[in-house]
């Protein structure tokens, strides 16, 4: 089991990271949502695999939550939001794709340089998984910064949470309470986001956050 278990865990972690780059480079909103669904499905696979090699069945629950909620339910709901409000299709990144990807690669390098040397005492599988997870977290942050659109920011936030779950499942014996709470947080977060979407729509007829900034500038005055 050892070799295969190790390699497959790495492969799945790396694939999750790869989809983070896909998320960064997408211009169209619908493609963005698809990439997010793919990332969540890969995360579910990674969690299930960890459950198998660590022999901890509760990770299957985490995998099931990731698959049902983040790979299926949330993307569907986001598509419905897009349809109902007739949101424009372009994702409008604030930064060009090229510079964004360069920044992304630098962040991955940074997290490798940060995590691998400091965790020398931990198990090899854990350290590399952690480095991959931190990369996903940082890329999620980068995505939240580079997207102006509300849906883009939400997807960035949830991709960041995917990175956190990847970190949590990679560490052996992490108590279930954390994973449950993360899943719970995603759910609550989505409800809140739903409310915001609804109201932003009501007030501005657009999900473009720059308009919110305009409102703010007027009220603050010179």
């Amino acid at each position, binding site marked *: 089991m050892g070799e295969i278990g190790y390699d497959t865990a790495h492969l799945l972690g790396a694939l999750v990271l790869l989809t983070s780059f896909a998320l960064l480079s997408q211009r169209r909103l619908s493609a963005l949502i698809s990439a997010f669904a793919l990332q969540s499905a890969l995360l579910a696979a990674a969690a299930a695999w960890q459950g198998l090699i660590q022999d901890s069945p509760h990770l299957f629950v985490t995998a099931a939550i990731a698959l049902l909620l983040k790979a299926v339910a949330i993307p569907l709901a986001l598509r419905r939001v897009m349809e109902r409000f007739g949101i424009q299709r372009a994702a409008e990144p604030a930064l060009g794709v090229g510079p964004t990807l360069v920044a992304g690669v630098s962040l991955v390098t940074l997290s490798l340089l940060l995590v691998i040397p*400091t965790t020398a005492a931990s198990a090899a599988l854990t350290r590399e998984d952690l480095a991959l997870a931190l990369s996903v*977290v940082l890329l999620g942050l980068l995505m939240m910064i580079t997207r102006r659109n509300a849906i883009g920011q939400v997807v960035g936030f949830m991709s960041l949470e995917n990175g956190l779950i990847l970190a949590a499942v990679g560490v052996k014996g992490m*108590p279930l309470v954390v994973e449950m709470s993360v899943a719970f947080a995603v759910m609550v977060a989505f409800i809140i986001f739903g409310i915001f979407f609804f109201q932003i729509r009501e*007030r501005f007829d657009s999900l473009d956050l720059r308009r*919110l900034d305009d409102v703010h500038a007027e009220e603050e005055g010179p």
Partner: protein
Amino acid sequence: MTQEPTLGPALAILLVPALAALGLALVPAWRLAARLNVVASGLTLASAAWLAAAPPAPTPLLLVDDFNLYLVLLTAFVGFTTSLFSAGYVAHELEDGRLTPRSLRFYHAMFQAFMLAMLLALLANNLGLLWVAVEGATLTTVLMVSLYRTAAAIEAAWKYFILCGVGIALALFGTILMYLSAQPLLGGGAAAMTWTALLAVAPRIDPGVLDLAFVFLLVGYGTKVGLAPLNGWLPDAHAEGPTPISGVLSGLLLNVALYAVLRFKMLMGANGQVLPPGTLMAAMGLATLLLAAFMLHRRRDMKRFFAYSSIEHMGLMAFAFGIGGPVANFAGLLHMTLHSLTKSAIFFAVGHVAQAAGTQRMDRVTGLTASHPALGWALVAGVAAIAGLPPFGLFMSEFLLVTSAFATHLVPASLLALGLLVGFAALVARVQGMAFGPPMEGVRELRAPLAPLYAHLALVLVAGVWLPPPLAAWFQSVAGMLG
């Protein structure tokens, strides 16, 4: 024969707000709900007193020691006075049509849920539970900040949610790293997430992972404290939400987040081989203080203005705990308590002023001491207290901090003094305009009771003149714990 203290009071203090939150969600009559909110907050305060009288031994999930006990008491007290203020405030807002009975039902349930989340965060012995509670407190306040449904309120809530969401995500990553560092020593499972167990093995934890974890935890929870650079959410959330919420945000939630950071700093201190955690914390605190002190001069909205003042004071506390030692820690703890009391009192006053004047713009408010003497002079007293003037208690904590810092860290202490002076100038200039000069025209009578406001200010005054010896001894023992 004395009985072994049970978990009863700790459970009571969590169950009261939990049940109240559920109950208030079902009460449609807002007048009744406002009264029930006061009763529930009073019961929480009574449970806190019971907890102080009979603190239980730590369990895997809950922990009561001197450090969190005083914060629990403070939280329950300010929660109670805020519920009193809130009852008068919401009646006024309803009359003006800014709130509806439906949104009030939601507001009262959320108020209690928020109290529950804060008390749980303070009492948690498990790092996961602490994180969940802080997240819960964030979610409930996001919902309350957006209560008015104006464009500005939604923008503030959005910004709050996004920035604090990021902060909380970073804190979770730090928590996972903390678990990773302790797992070889404590084995898998809940033990490696339990604070008391972690503290016992802290000297043997791998310092490299601990350093990495602390950086994430400091930046993550620091976002909620209002430390630079991720503090952009704080002024907007204070300015656009209902005023009672601004009061508890500044007075309580920032303390809870700082408490979380300090718990982790204690672990770092117990390890001994890590990078000095205090230096990073003191530097962030000082940067925050200076930034906020200069920003104070440009503000026009009164709630935003006092929110920047809160950032300034949180920076001051982070600096105090960062340089550490018995005197600076004592000053930090005292400042934490008195700042809570004073700042929530100021927000009560500001809420009354905004309702009487019909505006939050400071340049449109003049002559309050002539038109509303009781309120105007209370505002003057509150601002004098927050500016650090004697005889109020904040003078004592700031004086202790500045003198002890000058003895050991000359350059940072000079910067600290500069920041305090810059902030002081802004406070004096603004309160002069608001309190004195010709009275405004078209102001309204004020019917809301001023008792909570005066109670807070009286406590701050008493603390400045005479700090009760048992309280001083308590602070000294906690300052020793913090190291």
